[in-house]
């Protein structure tokens, strides 16, 4: 029982990371109807943005681990990734707007390879140690909690889940209750109609890439707090898992992406805890196959329909 609870906690923390990345996949799919395969690499760039800015930013707060410094590192990585995301759309995808989607999809794979190889060239191919921006340790529970005091919950896990929750709530507010969020939803339903309402499609697309990439950047830093070894190829696996999460939740559906991320994280933890860690990745992709076979529109996605 306590073992199960422990696995759920581990899964929740990892699932939060997938949820944050999955949102970028699903938002871009929502407005442009293609999978931005370079998105996992933006997550990697988020980790490296944190890696390079942390020494300077942490110095502002005495140099040692601090929550204020960590928050600043997180925000700076998110901002850098937002800019990178906007640039990727601007330079690589926008010129192909009128081309078949397959062209854009292949370009996305190209951008992904470029970021991975470029990352190896610029950052070096060897894993690097992410600086300690918070003092991560297991939280001590009082012995009076009995069996629950044997649970291992780290500060890093709490921060990851907490930050994810905050970011999801902010995103929800933006999408549901702002004019730009409404334009984004309108655009994903019908781009031509949205432009006939006066929506500047280019501006909304840039905004969508900025938000999605910022979320991936946050995931990059939050991951590195728990697993402080980062390398230029770290986005491949995480990106694929998050893509599966987005499909599982219903591609194009933002709450679906968050839910899918959490479920994939939980599934992984349970497989690692109860089955065999070797089966972790194959089972995640088995989920993808099952979803595509039995519920292609995902858990929360609606099959596309139009009244004529």
């Amino acid at each position, binding site marked *: 029982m306590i073992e199960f609870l422990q696995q759920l906690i581990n899964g929740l923390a990892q699932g939060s990371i997938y949820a944050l990345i999955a949102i970028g996949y699903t938002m871009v799919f929502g407005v442009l109807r293609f999978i931005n395969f370079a998105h996992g690499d933006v997550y990697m760039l988020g980790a490296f943005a944190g890696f390079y800015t942390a020494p300077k930013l942490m110095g502002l707060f005495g140099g040692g681990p601090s929550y204020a410094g960590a928050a600043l590192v997180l925000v700076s990585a998110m901002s850098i990734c937002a800019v990178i995301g906007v640039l990727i759309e601007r330079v690589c995808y926008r010129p192909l707007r009128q081309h078949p989607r397959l062209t854009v999809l292949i370009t996305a794979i190209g951008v992904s390879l470029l970021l991975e190889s470029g990352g190896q060239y610029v950052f070096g191919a060897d894993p690097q140690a992410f600086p300690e921006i918070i003092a991560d340790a297991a939280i001590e529970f009082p012995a009076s909690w009995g069996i629950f005091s044997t649970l291992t919950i780290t500060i890093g896990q709490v921060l990851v889940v907490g930050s994810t929750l905050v970011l999801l709530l902010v995103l929800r507010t933006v999408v549901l209750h702002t004019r730009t969020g409404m334009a984004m939803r*309108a655009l994903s339903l*019908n781009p031509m*109609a949205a432009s*006939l*309402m006066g*929506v500047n*499609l280019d501006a909304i697309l840039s905004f969508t890439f900025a938000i999605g990439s910022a979320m991936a950047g946050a995931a990059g830093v939050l991951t590195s707090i728990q697993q402080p070894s980062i390398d230029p190829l770290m986005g491949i696996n995480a990106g694929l898992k998050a893509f599966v999460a987005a499909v599982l939740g219903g591609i194009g559906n933002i709450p679906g992406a968050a839910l899918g991320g959490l479920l994939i994280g939980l599934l992984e933890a349970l497989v690692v805890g109860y089955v065999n860690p070797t089966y972790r990745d194959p089972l995640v992709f088995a989920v993808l196959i099952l979803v595509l076979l039995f519920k292609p529109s995902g858990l929360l996605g609606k099959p596309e329909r139009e*009244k004529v």
Partner: protein
Amino acid sequence: MSAPILDVRNLSVSYGAISALHGISLSITKGQIVTLVGANGAGKTTTLRTISGILKPTAGQIVFRDQNITGLPPHKIVARGIAQAPEGRMIFSNLTVHENLRMGAYLRKCKKEMAASMDQAFAIFPRLAERVKQEAGTLSGGEQQMLAIARALMSKPDCLMLDEPSLGIAPILVRTIFDKIVEINRDIGLTILLVEQNANLALEVSHYAYVLETGRITLEGEPAVLRQDPAVRAAYLGG
């Protein structure tokens, strides 16, 4: 005749190698309902989409309120004062009726004026007021058309373009929709460019009409005159 509010001059449009419009000219007088009648594929929707900036013309000019708006992107054309209720309605089905109307007023800053426009839309289409919180996709075809027109009105345009407002609507509602179009023109004084396959009805409500055939204007004039034209009668009015 007063100066036109919207003047289309020798407009040509192609889809790749296929030419859809061969230098058409239209002139829309302020405060009138002008109809473009023609068969399927004549280029009616192409004309409206080009005026709205969705399609780029290969030649010709579009002049609105004495300013050249040719080639501007759609959002800038809406800002200049041309709104369109597109063919097939294109309402935002997962958004509520209220959100659809707010999307129509996307470029407007003043909340007070926006509320006034919404009241005006509800006065014209009381049915929408009853369904304001409902998802637009759950409306009937006729109600969706009302929403599409109301949504276009929300930008407070100087010229409203309606693309096939009778398409796919229960016959009993078509008459209602056309009564509303006349009402909007008469009460708000709004200039309307109407594209319609139902030539009988369109000619009945409009002040001036053009006949479009395979990308060319073949006839124009007062509806009363066109209705007497044997060619028009044979082709569009059922003999």
